């Protein structure tokens, strides 16, 4: 066997060539030249809805040469909250994490400012509503990008036939598909009368009084309709005021017409109430209607999603936004911001809204008139008013305008529903208020 001898010149030439190749290699645009990105999205209720986000992200990743991994984290059993808490403690995890309502504020110190992304999107897609600003901004810092996926309004979903039959209310005429609401007469008093009539007719309104989100959101919107603040924007406990007393009196009257077991309802109870045909109205995003469409089509055909009744201080509807936040310890912030910008483009939003059957709501005002809501059915137009296209009601969240970290405690401890239940069960008004005051003072910890 002969052995080829390497000359000194050949050796130097080979070394120089390989060094040049090694030095220039990072600038060659390989399959994943722009690094890695891990995303924790909320796992959607609607079957197939995750696919829309996956497709948009994959398409972006291919173009930008980023290696992306996506985890869909469910909110059942609070797995998403546990993930947020664990990653915040470990200061390690996904680069982007979907955070519901209160969580951007709860983790504000650990989140990357997203001003450059959100301000650009506002210029492009229009303003965001006050609740998104309240929940997504700490001072001048945007804590996340308002996400379309998972954001929802929990407005009334009424049975057209039962409301006509028992309360004499034509919800379709009040909220016609394709045009502005004619709902001046849809007041809290009318609502109460309708609740009484439907109760007498054996189809009570299905409004929960438990400690889960749906119950808390509804009572919060009614409190705001009466101007009933329990903690003001500066963080002062102001629960002992006449507006709160008025709201409690109102809710006491309303509770008499609700199912007797409402204090033990969870977020699934109202859905079941509607789908089983036992009630004339629930407060929910269109997920209950979507289930009815599958399991009880004759009931779904009679459902109409519309606005809240107006109270002495205005018309408020609960809006629960999700945010896509980037951890300050994220290893690929430029890529994270780039993909979030992509996900917030009108065409991407339209795809996600369509994939969710109209459940998901973009926060930007120019994106509330997509064709999905106009066309979904049966009955056609049932979701037209769901995204509040005519800004007919103020989108709000229970316990606002208290500072978000205090409001989060009020919300999760369900202080407002507990006040209503205590008062309804015979506790004197002042005792209920004193109890609430004690609780609220406890929420002021920093």
């Amino acid at each position: 066997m002969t052995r080829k001898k390497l000359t000194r010149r050949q050796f130097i030439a080979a070394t120089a060539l390989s060094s040049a190749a090694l030095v220039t290699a990072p600038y060659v645009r390989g399959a994943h030249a722009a690094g890695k990105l891990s995303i924790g999205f909320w796992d959607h209720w609607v079957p197939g809805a995750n696919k829309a986000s996956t497709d948009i992200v994959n398409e972006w990743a291919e173009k930008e040469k980023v290696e992306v991994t996506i985890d869909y984290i469910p909110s059942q059993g609070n797995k998403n909250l546990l993930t947020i808490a664990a990653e915040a403690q470990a200061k390690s995890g996904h680069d982007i994490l979907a955070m519901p309502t209160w969580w951007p504020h709860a983790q504000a110190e650990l989140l990357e400012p997203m001003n450059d992304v959100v301000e650009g999107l506002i210029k492009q897609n229009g303003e965001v509503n006050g609740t998104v600003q309240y929940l997504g901004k700490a001072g001048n810092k945007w804590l996340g990008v308002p996400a379309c996926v998972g954001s929802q309004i929990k407005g009334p979903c009424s049975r057209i036939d039962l409301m006509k039959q028992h309360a004499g209310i034509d919800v379709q005429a009040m909220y016609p598909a394709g045009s502005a609401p004619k709902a001046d007469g849809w007041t809290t008093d009318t609502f109460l009368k309708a609740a009484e009539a439907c109760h007498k007719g054996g189809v009570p309104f299905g409004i929960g009084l438990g400690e889960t989100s749906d119950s808390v959101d509804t009572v919060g919107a009614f409190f705001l309709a009466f101007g009933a603040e329990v903690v003001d924007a500066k963080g002062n406990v102001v629960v002992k005021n006449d507006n709160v007393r008025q709201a409690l009196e109102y809710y006491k009257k309303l509770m008499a017409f609700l199912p007797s077991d409402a204090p033990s309802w969870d977020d699934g109870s109202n859905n079941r109430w509607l789908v089983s045909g036992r009630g004339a109205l629930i407060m929910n995003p269109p997920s209950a209607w979507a289930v009815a469409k599958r399991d009880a089509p004759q009931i779904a055909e009679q459902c109409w999603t519309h606005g809240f009744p107006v109270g002495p201080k205005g018309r408020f509807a609960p809006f629960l936004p999700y945010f896509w936040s980037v951890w300050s310890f994220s290893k690929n912030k430029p890529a994270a911001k780039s993909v979030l910008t992509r996900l917030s483009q009108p065409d991407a939003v339209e795809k996600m809204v369509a994939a969710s059957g109209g459940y998901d709501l973009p926060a930007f005002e120019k994106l509330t008139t997509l064709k999905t809501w106009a066309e979904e059915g049966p009955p056609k137009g049932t979701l037209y008013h769901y995204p509040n296209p005519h800004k007919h009601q103020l989108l709000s969240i229970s316990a606002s305008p208290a500072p978000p970290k205090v409001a989060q405690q009020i919300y999760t401890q369900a202080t407002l529903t507990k006040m209503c239940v205590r008062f309804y069960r015979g506790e004197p008004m002042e005792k209920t208020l004193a109890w609430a005051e004690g609780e609220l003072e406890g929420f002021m910890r920093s």
Partner: protein
Amino acid sequence: MADVAIERNAAPRTGRKRASLRTALKRKSTAAFLMTLPLILLILLLVIYPAFYSLHLATLNKSMQRFIGLGNFQFLFKRETFWLVVEQSCIFAITAVVFKALIGFIVAHFVHNIPAKGQRKWRGMLLVPWVIPPAMSTLAWLWLFDPSYSAFNYLLAGIGIDRIPWTGETGWARFSVILVNIWFGAPFFMIMYLASLKSVPDQLYEAAAIDGANWWQRIWYVTLPMMRNIIAITTLFSLIVTFANFDIVRILTAGGPLDRTHMFATWAFRIGIEGGDIPLGASVSLFMVPILAIAAVFILRDINKRGNES
């Protein structure tokens, strides 16, 4: 045997070291230690570290940026809901353990008296509630207690009894969570008591029968004294597990209505994870430690005393 080493020169010392290592490895205690080492490491990692970490968390302020010593505990002591949770945890744990012990004791006697041939089937069937993961079986109970579609209420309606708000009224909700806990935990008592019953020598009963003891005297003077240790250990173990219960309450009532079924663990979760106040949540969960430690000291001391007497 003692290892004695006399230092003379370097070479034999190395050889002797190897020999003593070999001897050490051959010792039963070393083998036992090595075999339990994975478990010790696991406990260190999953129990000891989190325990100390939660101690550390409990000394921080809400935003976890400042050390506040016992500030969280001082805060809790002033909260009405905290004392409500303490009271409920005690009611829940004591009631559930008493009934589990009672039912376990009675059923163990029944099973003990079944002829050996059919006993295995009964033992297996009675253990079913304890074998099913509680998160799963509680879901079934949740449907049975469902506010609007309760199967129990359907049956009650069939015999003309009005609907019961199983999880909607304070009293009924407490009853429901305790009932499910008893259903889940009684088989554990039953199997422990059954094992204990089987180890009571028949001669003692024969002697008692010759002395003219009736069934109650046989239980009081023979069975119970012979089962004392197992009763004490089972009670302690169950008390700890019941006090720290999370899944049953969380699934069935989530602490409601009006916080009237919250236990330490569920309230800690509500505050710490859902409410975002991890230090306060850690403090709530740590509050179980002194209560259970006192119970453990009393019960174990009694067992030691009896152990020494025997």
